[in-house]
Structures are given as structure tokens and as C-alpha cells.
């Protein structure tokens, strides 16, 4: 039988990126700056957000569902952004 995963604390990282269909003018501007620096071979630059959350203990499954909801409702805007959630025990 598999024990329910329950740790004393967690660290969650939510990475928010613009959907591929959404133009990223900031990323393009950085791409131009890289060209000006003389860096070659950069095909594209996209900017996203990296959000770290420290969380008290709890059941991982419940926590993951809650974090998915938070990511959809507040941390990202599903109209124009995707998110990736990474959850690690031991906060």
C-alpha cells in the first residue's frame, strides 16, 4: 500500500510563459540586444515569470490541486499564458 504523501513543508515553483501564439515584444527587444552584443545563433527569446511559494505541510495531492487553481486563477492569465507547476517536499 502506498502511503499518502505528506511532508512538513513544500516549495512550489510556478513558471508562467506567454503562449506561443502571443507576440513577446520584450523577448524580441532582448534578442536585438543580444545581436548588438555580437552574440550569434540565438533563434528566439521569450520572457516569462518565475514564482516561488513556500507552503506549510499538507497532503501533496490536495496541495497540487490548490496550486493548479491558484496558477489558473491568479498567477497566469489563460487567455495569453501557460504555466508549469513544480512541487517539491521540504520547504
Amino acid at each position, binding site marked *: 500500500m502506498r502511503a499518502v504523501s505528506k511532508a512538513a513543508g513544500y516549495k512550489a515553483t510556478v513558471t508562467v510563459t506567454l503562449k506561443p501564439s502571443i507576440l513577446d515584444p520584450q523577448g524580441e527587444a532582448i534578442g536585438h540586444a543580444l545581436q548588438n552584443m555580437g552574440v550569434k545563433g540565438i533563434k528566439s527569446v521569450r520572457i516569462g515569470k518565475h514564482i516561488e511559494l513556500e507552503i506549510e505541510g499538507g497532503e501533496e495531492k490536495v496541495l497540487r490541486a490548490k496550486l493548479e487553481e491558484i496558477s489558473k486563477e491568479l*498567477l497566469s492569465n489563460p487567455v*495569453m499564458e501557460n504555466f508549469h507547476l513544480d512541487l517539491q517536499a521540504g520547504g
Partner: protein
Amino acid sequence: MRFAVVQFPGSNCDQDCVHALQILGQEARLVWHQETKINPEEAVILPGGFSYGDYLRCGAIARFSPIMAAVKVAAERGQVVVGICNGFQILCEAGLLPGALTRNEGLHFRCETAPIRVETPTTRFTSAYVTGQILQIPIAHGEGCYRASPDVLQELEARQRILFRYCNPEGEVVAEANPNGSSHAIAGICNARGNVLGMMPHPERCCEPEMGGVDGRGILLGAAGVGRSL
């Protein structure tokens, strides 16, 4: 008509809205975002500015302010809700209008008077105007590039919910006249019921000749239900 102008931390067009409404003969009160009540007879304005410093995304945090629950109820009851600039961003984040406003395509913060074309004069907000009328309205934003899924854009077009488009001085909708890269050159849209308006240009900034023009009057009077009196 009595207006409730919501103040979020970082709003900066709230006083301008109150002033513009008052010189147009309307009653207006400021409502702090921590308040929870909008009266049933009031129209609501979410003014421009930088609510919560534009942290995370423009309007993303303001959407969770206590007053927003009351604004949602007011919109559902059919009361007038107008979001101007940051207010438009908040309405999109809150789901009261579809789509989202993203970084201007050219990256510049655009602060200038932009001609916009009236597309649909049959709404309460545009009843003072005629189709194709060109209005000179100030814009001031860094994130006004309207984006929505193809389905939503099609719906907005089909239901004539695009009230204003950016245009050149001749009234032509061309790429060079689009200050932020908005899809379909959208400057303002309304909801399906026609009681919620979101627009990036600032009508409250052009209601007196001393301010360089009066083209914004019709929009605010329209919100008050007396657009045709103009």
C-alpha cells in the same frame, strides 16, 4: 445618473473621472476598493492608473479587491460598468469582458491623442455618435494590445461589440494607426448585454475645450443614459 468611481491603490484617473462627470451634470462619488457596496441605481467606473503597481499583470490583483464582487453583481444586474485603460484591464482579468491586454507591440508607452472610429452607434455608450465618426481621445498606456482567441474575436465582430477602433486621421483602420498592435485594431468593446464597456482611450480627459477637446463627453453621457442629449 449617479456614478461610483472606484479607487484602487495606484488608480490615478479617479479624480479626473469625478471631475468630468460633474461638469457633465452627473453625480459622482469615490469608492475605496475595500468597500463592498455599489448601490443598485449607480453606474460604476473603474478608472485608469496602475492599480497595485501593475504587479504580476495589469489588473490581476485589483480583480480580487473586495469591491469587485459588488461590481460583478452590478454588472449582472444590468447596471452600467465602464473600465477605462487600467479599468479595461481589470474588467478583462475579472472575466466581465473577454480577452486580455498585453504589452504594446512596439514596447513604447504611448501617451498621445489617438483618433478612434465609432464602429457601433447602437449601444448606450455610443448613442451620441454616428457610424464612422472619428473621435480624438487621449491614450496613455504601455499594455493596451488587445488579444483574444479567434472565436472571441469573431463573436465580437459578428455581434458588433467592437465599439471603437484605432484609425488614422482620415478614419482608415490601417496598421500604422494602431498604437499598440491590438487585434482588429480594437480600442474598446462591450459585453453581450451592452452594459459593460472597456476601452483603452480616456474619454474623461477630453470633456472640456480647455483640455484640448470634448469628444469624450458623448461616451460618459452615454454611460449616464443621456448620450442622445448631446
